[in-house]
């Protein structure tokens, strides 16, 4: 690697752009995409709360605007970055970018953000047509919503990749040792923050199978084993932070908890009938899963055994993740059903306005929600097996992310 060449260009860049010095050589684009990721998450969780509390949807409802703001910010910053690099960028700048379609150059993160922005914008007329054709669906997963979710995920992933590329590149010269440390800390922190936002998105997509009523059923653990070990292993491997998976799970929990505490502070009234549950304030979205516990285990294993065979690592992390999820969420499910969880902190009194508040299983597991005996063991074995595969995949993906430099 031509380190001197890189150092030279980076110094030139830093000296020529005083704003960059202030941000420790981290372009504004990285902060903008991280903001876009947060804006999308707030918009999404607010939108779910809006549907369970107010119900009446609209293309330009305030939560939708939050999501669109994320799309626009990431799209504009990324688009600008790609166009600037492609047509006005110096040779050196272009050499720090990926080239595509013969004429364009830009960072990989920007490309993901542009894709996400276009997908989100495509989903708007598609969703509008969908509502006019099949009715105003009250579901998270529908084809146009999936296009939107994929778009949002790509914007969020673009934010993660943008930070990673910075992290993986050589530190630009011209920074003092203190600044270098600060820069490293900042990049590592932004990376786990943007990863935490992404984890909120993953959870939200799967939330129809992850509510408190699902925590005693086998499907909960299969879905959990499919998603979280994959993502958390990838983060643990790609981040240079020691406790990356733990911090990511912590950010995920904090975001969901903050939203669960803040949204019910605002008044809301159902605007659609039939109304079976009279409410006066926003109903909170779910209390987060206690993913921080299995995440600690992932970090501990990764700290000690990262250099081991990746299949061996997956064999350790996968089943352990499912066991820890079971050990934590099963009793936590009981707790969430108990009167102790019916307070502002755990927000378990939240209830969709169209559901009967006197339903006998509002705070209890109905027989059909509980797996036991062989079916439970079978589900856990499946979850464990899937978890091994997804962990292996996550480690591979994390290995790739570790290498992204542009």
């Amino acid at each position: 690697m031509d380190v001197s060449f890189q150092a030279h260009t980076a110094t030139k860049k830093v000296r020529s752009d005083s704003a960059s010095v202030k941000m420790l050589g981290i372009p504004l684009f990285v902060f903008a995409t991280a903001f876009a990721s947060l804006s999308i998450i707030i918009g999404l969780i607010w939108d779910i709360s809006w549907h369970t509390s107010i119900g009446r949807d609209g293309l330009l409802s305030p939560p939708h605007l939050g999501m669109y703001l994320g799309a626009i910010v990431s799209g504009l910053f990324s688009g600008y970055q790609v166009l600037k690099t492609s047509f006005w960028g110096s040779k050196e700048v272009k050499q720090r970018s990926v080239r595509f379609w013969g004429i364009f150059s830009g960072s990989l993160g920007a490309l993901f953000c542009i894709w996400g922005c276009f997908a989100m914008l495509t989903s708007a007329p598609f969703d509008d047509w969908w509502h006019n054709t099949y009715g105003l669906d009250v579901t998270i997963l529908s084809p146009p919503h999936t296009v939107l979710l994929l778009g949002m995920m790509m914007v969020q992933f673009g934010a993660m990749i943008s930070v990673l590329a910075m992290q993986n590149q050589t530190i630009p010269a011209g920074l003092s040792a203190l600044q270098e440390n600060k820069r490293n800390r900042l990049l590592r922190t932004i990376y786990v923050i943007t990863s935490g936002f992404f984890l909120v998105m993953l959870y939200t997509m799967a939330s129809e199978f992850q509510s408190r009523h699902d925590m005693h059923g086998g499907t909960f653990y299969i879905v959990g084993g499919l998603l979280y070990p994959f993502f958390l292993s990838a983060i643990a491997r790609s981040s240079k932070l020691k406790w990356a998976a733990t911090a990511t799970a912590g950010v995920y929990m904090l975001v969901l908890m903050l939203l669960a505490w803040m949204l019910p502070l605002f008044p809301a009234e159902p605007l659609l009938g039939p109304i079976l549950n009279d409410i006066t304030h926003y109903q909170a979205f779910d209390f987060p899963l206690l993913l921080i516990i299995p995440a600690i285990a992932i970090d501990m294993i990764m700290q000690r055994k990262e250099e081991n065979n990746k299949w061996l690592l997956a064999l350790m992390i996968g089943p352990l993740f499912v066991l820890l999820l079971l050990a934590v969420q099963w009793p936590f499910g009981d707790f969430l059903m108990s009167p102790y969880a019916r307070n502002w902190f755990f927000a378990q009194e939240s209830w969709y306005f169209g559901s009967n508040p006197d339903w006998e299983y509002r705070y209890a597991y109905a027989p059909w929600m509980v797996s036991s005996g062989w079916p439970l063991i079978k589900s856990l074995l499946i979850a464990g097996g899937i978890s091994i595969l997804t962990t292996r995949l996550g480690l591979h993906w994390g290995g790739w992310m570790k290498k992204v430099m542009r």
Partner: protein
Amino acid sequence: MKYIINPVRLFILFLLVLSPAYAHVGSPGVIYEGEAGPYRIMVNVNPPDVIPGTATVQVYVTNGGVEQVLLKPIYWFSGADGAPKADEALPLAASPGQYEGLTWLMSNGTASIEVKVSGELGEGTALVPVMAMSTAQKEMDPALGWILGALGLFLVILMITIIGVSVSDAVVPPGDEKKKTGHRKTKGMVVAAAFLCLILYGGMSWWNNWAEDYRRYMYKPYQANTKVVTTDNGRKMIFEIDSAYKEYRQNYLPISYLIPDHGKLMHMFLVREGSLDAFAHLHPVRTDSLTFEVDLPPLPNGRYFVFGDIVRGNGFHETITDTMEIMGLELPVSLTTSDENDGWQPSDPDDTYIISNPVLPNQVQLAAGDIVVCGKPGIRTPLPDGSSAIWEHEGESFQANRLYPMTFSILDPDGEPAELEPYMGMMGHAVVMKHDGSVYIHLHPVGNYSSASQDLIKRRMEDDSRLVELPSADQFRDSVDQVVASIKAMSEEERNDYLMELMGHTYEEEENGEHAGHATVTFPYAFPEPGNYRIWIQMKRNGQVLNTAFDAVVE
């Protein structure tokens, strides 16, 4: 001579707009004319053709200083307490007295719009029944299809590109441009393309499943089989509702739960196809939960449109359509309605029929004695009993989707306003049909909603339970059959008094109200689409039902 032409109606003539959808046949808009407490109002509801969706509601208030008009959707399923807060209908600056607003209909089923008017005269409410059902399967507009297709293609190409560079350029340290990564890029792009094809295929299957599900739960009217059998007492029509439809409707209220409307379990209309020169309004009797029978009047041979209007126990008002052949002996066709001469003994005292001229001049005129010659708007038309009818309208043509006050005046043989009497609790009944049968609707002077639906929702609103419970189907059917039989057994005067009271007004009130003088009857209606229409009007004078018909061209 005293013709009552409400200036409000004439005004609305040019204001209100409807669009096509369901309920009855091809004529979805719901029109209400009546009172909201001290206010006289006309309401025009244009329900959505996809549920959940929004209904457009137009309200015209003709008296009192109005301060606010509120609209609230109330479902029979969850009652008044389960309704959201009302939305305001805003005044239209260009049209004093007219208000317009949107109401959200979230679930399928029997709903209603509560219109609340407040102002100088105090507060008043009116309830307009609306049947909330998805009735349309929409196709994507080609322009939108191309735009979405192009965006989709762009997204696919961009994603293949991104994955290609992700595994090649992106992992090459900056400055190390000599490293050859072309084969990795190609491999990545091929894998990405294959993976995206799988995703797109999965997405397409998902979309198709979604559309299939939507079609499954879309509103489909009941199907029926109609046949004519000859008995010792003449010809009898048997109308059998297709039981196979019960299966798809398992989520809804079974057909056993029917309630009477205007005292009858079914209002059936027969119209001879093609010439539209034979028309009957009959009231079949239920023999079991799916079968209805009625004695046929002496109608000429031919193929007939059959329309059966029913109201289910949850207030859902719908029309079952079929066609039937009347074959065999040509019976003497000589009268416009039942009397001693034709020997027809109707199975219900309110059954009537009419023979008129065919719709097209080149069609053969039936050889009947008292043929009613169909009138045209604005032209005085003689009736068989010596009286005459006139449709108060200037010019002959109408615009589609515009609300018209179809006002008909009856003059006695001396040319004086006739004294009309109520017929089945109403001052008049009308049927509007497009020549090809694609539009059919049964109208009353109060609008085109079902009084039975309205009454049921009013009762539901008095009940403060959130969810409703019904008795068993057998119990329900038996008690309804008893009520219908007892109404049928009443004398005509008793029956009229009973039905008018049920609908919340009396004949005496009508004398002082809009129908004062009882010489005119107005049916508010908007033709949903252009074409040629025939309108049959049924009113009563001197104890005899006067059937007349008019032709109209809608542009």
